[in-house]
């Protein structure tokens, strides 16, 4: 197992190379001169040139890339064009807000998704099953921002149960987490259901019943452990979608997270910040998928680990 994890860590190297390269090129292939941006519209040619030299913008691209990666490895993402503050300082508080939002939403979607999927599968084609699956279909197809606006309208504005914007207090957490977690819950519910149905008809489930195992234990131990294997993969993929969803959710609920920072920075053409945000979000995604892969192997003993 340890060798497997080490091997998987090594496999991260090309992935990270790809991610950093893409982010790096993103900056250099977009039209517009960064030095011009920093210096402002009216700056003289000599000022721009001075800035270009100080930023190393005249070095060959490979040299610039190496410098970029070296800086990034030390969490040095440069300075924000807008505020002239270190990008890292700008990002840090927002990073935790987004992580909180993403993690709570993931937990919510796993929790709801698993329960709904199991309940559906155990009573296939019952009223309960059909109802849950219809709700799941809605949950999957509803656009994130629309759900957010609807929730805000009903529960904040009409009923006044939760504050409509911001992040921090328990009340502020509820609506954004539901908004962001719903689609994932729906996808996980559908996946769990079909996976459970598949597993329940397997021979070893009949064996368990033939041993005199209580039906509850047949479902929650014998079937669920096997049914979870494909679900784990979906959770990993879902996390990527969820990260993308933070952008809209944070915008709707005016949460000062990474997602909103990305939008604001794009609007202001504040490239170092955009770059850093994308890089960080990509790395989170890669790491989460590594964790998913490892739990997948822990669950599924049949995977060849060597």
């Amino acid at each position, binding site marked *: 197992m340890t060798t497997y994890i080490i091997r998987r860590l090594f496999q991260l190297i090309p992935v990270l190379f790809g991610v950093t390269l893409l982010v790096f090129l993103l900056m250099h292939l977009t039209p517009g001169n960064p030095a011009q941006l920093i210096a402002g519209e009216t700056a003289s040619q000599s000022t721009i040139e001075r800035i270009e030299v100080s930023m190393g913008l005249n070095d060959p691209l490979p040299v610039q890339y190496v410098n970029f990666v070296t800086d990034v490895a030390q969490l040095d993402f440069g300075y924000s064009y807008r505020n002239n503050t270190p990008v890292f300082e700008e990002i840090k508080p927002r990073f935790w807000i987004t992580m909180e939002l993403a993690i709570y939403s993931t937990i919510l979607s796993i929790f709801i998704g698993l329960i709904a999927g199991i309940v559906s599968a155990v009573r296939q084609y019952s009223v309960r099953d059909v109802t849950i699956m219809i709700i799941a279909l809605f949950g999957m197809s509803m656009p994130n921002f629309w759900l957010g606006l609807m929730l805000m309208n009903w529960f904040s504005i009409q009923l006044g149960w939760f504050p409509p914007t911001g992040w921090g207090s328990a009340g502020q957490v509820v609506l954004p987490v539901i908004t962001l977690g719903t689609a994932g819950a729906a996808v996980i519910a559908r996946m769990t259901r079909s996976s459970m149905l598949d597993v329940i008809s397997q021979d070893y489930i009949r064996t368990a019943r*033939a041993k005199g195992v209580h039906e509850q234990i047949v479902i929650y131990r014998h079937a669920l452990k096997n049914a979870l294997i494909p679900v784990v993969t979906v959770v990993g993929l879902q996390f990527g979608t969820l990260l993308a969803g933070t952008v809209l959710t944070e915008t709707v609920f005016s949460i000062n997270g990474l997602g909103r920072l990305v939008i604001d920075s794009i609007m202001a053409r504040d490239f170092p910040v955009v770059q850093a945000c994308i890089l960080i979000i990509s790395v989170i995604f890669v790491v989460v998928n590594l964790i998913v892969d490892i739990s997948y192997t822990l669950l599924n003993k049949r995977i060849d680990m060597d």
Partner: protein
Amino acid sequence: MSTNESILEVTDLRTSFFTEGGEVKAVDGVTFDVPAGKTLGIVGESGSGKSITAMSILQLISHPGKIKGGEIKFRGKNLLDLSEKEMRKIRGNQISMIFQEPMTSLNPTYTVGQQIRESYKIHQGLGKKEGSKRAIEMLKLVGIPSPEKRLDQYPFELSGGMRQRVMIAMALACKPDLLIADEPTTALDVTIQAQILELIKELQDELGMSVVMITHDLGVVAETCDYVAVMYCGKVVEYADVRTLFKNPRHPYTVGLLKSLPRSDRDQEELTPIKGTVPSPDEMPVGCRFAPRCPFATNLCHEKLPSLDDVGDGEQIRCWIYTDEWNGDPGVKVYEPERTTEG
């Protein structure tokens, strides 16, 4: 056969599947006895309802299947009257089952030890330590080398033969009174087949169990069974002790089966398959189910279903030939004189 010498008496058992295409009567009035301490063989072509009969006994039929009626008396008690909770106490404890598919019948995500220990935990309340001790004994009993090591292995680490042994160890863990073995060896190669059958026989003698042996192989029947029930289209058509069945098969289907099924225990002249095919559920004949394929069928056979009748010596036949109503060729009652030299 009277109650006190039978461990299991199945009477008019009916199990159907309610599919989109309508009701499929997989088991349609099955009746047989399993004498205590003996082995009953159930034979019949694929799809005749052998496995569904076996699973009905343990009430393991799941949606869209349903046991519609009949009686399954185990030690004089009708299992169909028991609650699910009472039934759980019987499954794996007093009646155990080995399934047709050793490769897929063990849970891939639990170790061999966990799966065997579970039986001890459920039925005898044993903890991990005591359960492991018993599991090792059981694995030793079924001839698995270095059983201590096997406990922590997962099914995928074992061969098919080993997995079937684990299945047997699991089934026999609580020393059941009745073992139902559904083609326990079909998926295995010939030498392992023989070992497994030998093993079941030894354990039967040792533990004094009764066995229901479902098989396609008449060699297996000849070697392991005391009585045989021949099934066709969800019904028992002939029930006899094994010597009588081989020496003097009476139902035309049994005769056909004897000529068409392989026997692993001896060389055979060419196999002659029974003409025609098993009718599909939606075109089930109204009369004798076998009539369309039977060389002796008369109008009576096509129109009316014969009942399963005693014909003496504990033998039962479902065939018009052996009734007073028979109006066909009287000579057909004597089949295959050369068969009398066999068996």
